[in-house]
């Protein structure tokens, strides 16, 4: 690997060409102190603490910015370098307030540690220290520079890590360094706050206590806390985090750098999201319904009640009278154990986890789209792509760390980023080369038009792709209705814009397609999946990823939380293996999916449901219908941590532990399985999922003796690819990939049949569901810190519609569909297309699903001023 050697402290140290002296030394285990250097940032050489002696050079050099060259002889611990370090520290400390007793960084402060190691123990400075006073009333000159972040300029050592993270990594502009020399102040631009989605990272990486946040401020001392390694449960990126706890209370979350995934940066949703664990709204004890009211009771009583009632239903309807829903944020162990409970103990295959897939598939579609799945690709592949297509995804808020990779590709080698979205997204202004806004529901047409434009180009080289000339010309013929101007009439996208995108695609060597939530919610979801595969076939080399909706959706699909597949994505023919494994029969026929289950309840075919950390009443289209159906159930058992809309209808509620109180594994979008530790013991009377499932199974007559996740994991491990770890201890830092061997093969070209949805004259607006700033899904609504960034729920409308309806920012507007209505404050969004309405799905008081029809393909609404 290495290109040549240099000598550091008399040792031979291998160097890869282009590495700095610091990087080479660190890799060889030679420690050089740093303040301003960070592995992910471009070195600036601002702090000078890393000065080292290099022979034949007259002065000391900064190790962090000096490129190693052959034959260098470096001394990092010579008397001269030690003396210089002392000098640098003395200069830094000359104006440093030494607030260590009050400073939140005390105990983990680089300046403190290095001063302890190298510094003098007296001060030669007798003049008063320079001091930035922000408020005559405050003793410590703390300044709130954002909803969450507090700056203390006196402690700043001007390393510029914070501004560089904001600029180089996050591509944001809400923090800068103003003035010069020791008057330099770290501030947001005048009149603004620092509130970007990655702002927590500057607190974590400030080497001193100049930047702190409310979350950790004056709460606990770092040396008292214990750390555990967990996987963030908030999105399918699967960032690695550390949770810091003391006396079984969580105090903060920080990143745990994993170069495969997060590079050490996590978003604020993950950083502050852990707070829901200790929320006072948690369900504390089991509850049962007595004369219409939910009352607290004991575990014993709740379980016997379930036993009694299920016996009745089972004798009447057998196993098919039951169903189970499980949320995508649970661990693989819980998902596996839950489907085993349902299949083996209860004898029902009615199980689903897909509340995001909001449409019933027409039978034809379902068949044709089978096999169109994500390719095998990793975060690192995004970085290597030269063109990144983001299709139907607000990547910034849905997959914040994937979004950082995209930005990194732009930063590192000027990758081109093309956004194809039904609405403008934050990534557009920050990293996009071209941003295309299509009309919701026409994405498949757009892609076919795009393919046509690519083929039309002179530089298009058919020999570079794996399609024959006949295939291409047939495809073009079939596609004529969607190409050029005719396509643009349907999609509302300008022909020249499509041509420019085509130009970039045709020149691309390595394309990465990221398809997000608007693809899953698209009325033509499955045709769109096929269209993506078609586009892939026309690119020289392309990978596609369909980003899953929730943190462990991939795991839920893999471990059998679907009615038609068995764990390990095995088909029904392999049933016997599972009967052997579970020592008993499982039902013969595949079960019903979410919509099928709801309809069966409506027709009294199903009478009992187990809902495990899921909230269909809040999330599934036509909330009112789902509610009325759930009310019909004879027995609804909800296993959850919070009083969700579904839990309110329950007959029995069992309190469930949250992600910090359980151990287990999760699978991110790369299909990387990672292990998450337990940080604190279960709070209140809640129990971890695997334990609850074992209790239920035991009560209902089958014992698995697997109440510990590690036991369940050992059983699951047989479904992994060979060579995968079979114990938690063997999983290791990097996790492992559970994907199948066959990779990246685009299938045959599929033709599109597009039928424009009938236009209803009354409901003329298209409903788009998105996320509010600093939110993702419904887990974040109970979080005080994240709420500081967001404020209230809003109804996002375009400037043109606002003028039409004479609505101004903050006015109350009514959003109404055939099924229901919500009222909210209008928020006028700039550059937002007209005749669309954006509603965040993060707020309980404004649930979006009551506006949707369960049979409708596209959600049409009307808007009026109140």
């Amino acid at each position, binding site marked *: 690997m290495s290109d040549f050697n240099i000598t550091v402290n008399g040792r031979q140290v291998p160097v890869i060409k282009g590495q700095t002296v610091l990087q080479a030394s660190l890799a060889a285990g030679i420690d050089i102190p740093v303040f301003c250097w960070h592995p992910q940032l471009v070195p600036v050489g601002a702090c000078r603490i890393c000065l080292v002696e290099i022979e034949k050079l007259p002065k000391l050099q900064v190790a962090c910015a000096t490129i190693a060259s052959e034959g260098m002889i470096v001394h990092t611990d010579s008397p001269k370098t030690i003396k210089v370090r002392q000098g640098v520290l003395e200069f830094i400390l000359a104006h440093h307030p030494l607030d*260590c*007793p*009050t400073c939140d960084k005390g105990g983990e402060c680089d300046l403190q540690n290095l001063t302890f190691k190298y510094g003098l123990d007296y001060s030669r400075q007798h003049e*008063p220290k320079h001091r930035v006073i922000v408020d005559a009333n405050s003793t410590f000159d703390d300044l709130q520079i954002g909803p969450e972040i507090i700056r203390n300029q006196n402690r700043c050592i001007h390393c510029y890590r914070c501004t560089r993270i904001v600029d180089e990594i996050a591509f944001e502009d809400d923090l800068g360094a103003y003035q010069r020399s020791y008057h330099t102040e770290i501030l947001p631009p005048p009149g603004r706050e620092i509130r970007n989605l990655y702002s927590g990272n500057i607190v974590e990486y400030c080497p001193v206590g100049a930047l702190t946040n409310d979350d950790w401020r004056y709460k606990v*001392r770092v*040396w008292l806390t214990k750390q555990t390694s967990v996987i963030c449960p908030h999105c399918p990126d699967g960032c690695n985090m550390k949770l810091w706890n003391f006396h079984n209370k969580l105090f903060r979350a920080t990143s745990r750098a994993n170069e495969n995934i997060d590079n050490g940066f996590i978003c604020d949703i993950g950083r502050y999201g852990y707070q829901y664990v200790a929320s006072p709204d948690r369900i504390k004890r089991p509850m049962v319904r007595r004369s219409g009211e939910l009352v607290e009771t004991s575990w014993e009583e709740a379980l016997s009640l379930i036993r009694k009632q299920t016996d009745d239903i089972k004798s009447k309807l057998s196993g098919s009278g039951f169903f189970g829903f499980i949320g995508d944020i649970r661990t693989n162990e819980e998902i596996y154990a839950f489907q085993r409970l349902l299949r083996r103990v209860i004898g029902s295959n009615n199980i689903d986890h897909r509340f995001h897939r909001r449409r019933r598939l027409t039978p034809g579609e379902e068949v044709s789209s089978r096999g169109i799945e994500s390719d095998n690709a990793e975060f690192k592949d995004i970085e290597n792509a030269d063109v990144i297509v983001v299709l139907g995804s607000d990547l910034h808020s849905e997959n914040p760390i994937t979004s950082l990779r995209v930005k990194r590709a732009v930063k590192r080698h000027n990758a081109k980023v093309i956004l194809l979205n039904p609405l403008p997204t934050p990534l557009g202004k920050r990293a996009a080369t071209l941003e295309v806004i299509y009309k919701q529901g026409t994405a498949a047409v757009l892609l076919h038009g795009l393919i046509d434009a690519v083929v039309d180009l002179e530089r298009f080289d058919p020999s570079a792709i794996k399609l024959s000339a006949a295939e291409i010309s047939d495809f073009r013929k079939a596609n004529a209705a969607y190409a050029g101007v005719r396509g643009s009439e349907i999609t509302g996208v300008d022909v020249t814009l499509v041509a420019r995108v085509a130009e970039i695609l045709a020149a691309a060597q390595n394309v990465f397609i990221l398809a997000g939530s608007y693809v899953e919610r698209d009325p033509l979801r499955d045709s769109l999946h096929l269209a993506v595969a078609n586009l892939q076939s026309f690119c020289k080399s392309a990978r596609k990823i369909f980003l899953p909706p929730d943190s462990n959706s991939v795991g839920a699909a893999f471990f059998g939380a679907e009615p038609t597949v068995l764990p390990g994505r095995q088909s029904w023919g392999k049933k016997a293996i599972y009967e052997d494994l579970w020592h008993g029969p499982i039902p013969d026929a595949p079960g019903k999916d979410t919509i099928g289950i709801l309809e069966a309840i409506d027709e009294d075919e199903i009478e009992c449901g187990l809902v495990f950390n899921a909230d269909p009443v809040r999330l599934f289209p036509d909330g009112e219908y789902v509610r009325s159906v759930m009310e019909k159930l004879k027995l609804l058992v909800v296993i959850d941590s919070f009083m969700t809309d579904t839990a309110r209808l329950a007959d029995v509620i069992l309190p469930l532990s949250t992600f910090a109180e359980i151990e287990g594994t999760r699978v991110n979008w790369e299909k990387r399985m990672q292990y998450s530790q337990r940080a604190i013991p279960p709070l209140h009377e809640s129990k971890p999922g695997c334990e609850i499932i074992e209790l239920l199974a035991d009560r209902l007559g089958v014992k698995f003796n697997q109440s510990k996740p590690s036991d369940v994991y050992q059983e699951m491990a047989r479904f992994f690819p060979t060579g995968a770890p079979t114990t938690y201890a063997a999983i290791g830092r990097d996790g492992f990939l559970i994907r199948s061997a066959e990779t990246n093969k685009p299938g045959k070209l599929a033709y599109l049949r597009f039928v424009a949805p009938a236009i209803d004259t009354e409901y003329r607006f298209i409903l788009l569901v998105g996320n509010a700033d600093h939110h993702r899904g419904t887990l974040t609504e109970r979080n005080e810190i994240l709420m500081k960034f967001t404020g209230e729920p809003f109804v996002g409308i375009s400037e043109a519609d606002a003028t039409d309806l004479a609505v101004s920012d903050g006015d109350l507007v009514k959003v109404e569909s055939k099924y229901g209505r919500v009222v909210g404050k209008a928020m006028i969004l700039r550059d937002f297309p007209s005749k669309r309405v954006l509603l965040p799905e993060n707020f309980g008081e404004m649930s979006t699903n009551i506006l949707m029809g369960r049979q409708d393909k596209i959600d049409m609404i009307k808007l009026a001023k109140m």
Partner: protein
Amino acid sequence: MFRVLKQIFVAIPIGMFTVLKQAFRKPVTIQYPFEKEPMMPRYRGLHFLERYEDGSERCVCCGLCAASCPADAIYMEPAETEKGERYAKIYEINELRCIFCGFCEEACPEEAIFLGKEYEFADSQRDKFIYTKEDLLVKWPREIPSPVKFIRKDRRVTWENLPEEQKQ
């Protein structure tokens, strides 16, 4: 015979003389609790928490005393005043666990905690030995002058005592 006579006429009078001599001497015992001896200057008794001369608490709840305490006798929880100062919302010392080593006093960077001369705090219930912040803080206004000499008089360079040229 001779020995008996020697005891009667020599040893007993000597003993009687010693008794009489001591009986008229000033006694060395004192009438505790009515009388008390002054303690040695470096005696380490019950803790107290000092204040600044304006009455505010010196302790900033940094946790160093607790970290240095070999008996794990100190517990605290910090909070913030509206002036942005850190203070101890809860500060407790379990005097039963304390071994009066004085490490806490040694560790304190704010010169807030001291071991005083008080030794009379026996009680009949164990939980009475958990001294809270209110128990430990010196009475304000002071009833007796502070026994300790501080090095630092101000919490922090404040606006008032800032040199004029820096106020711009």
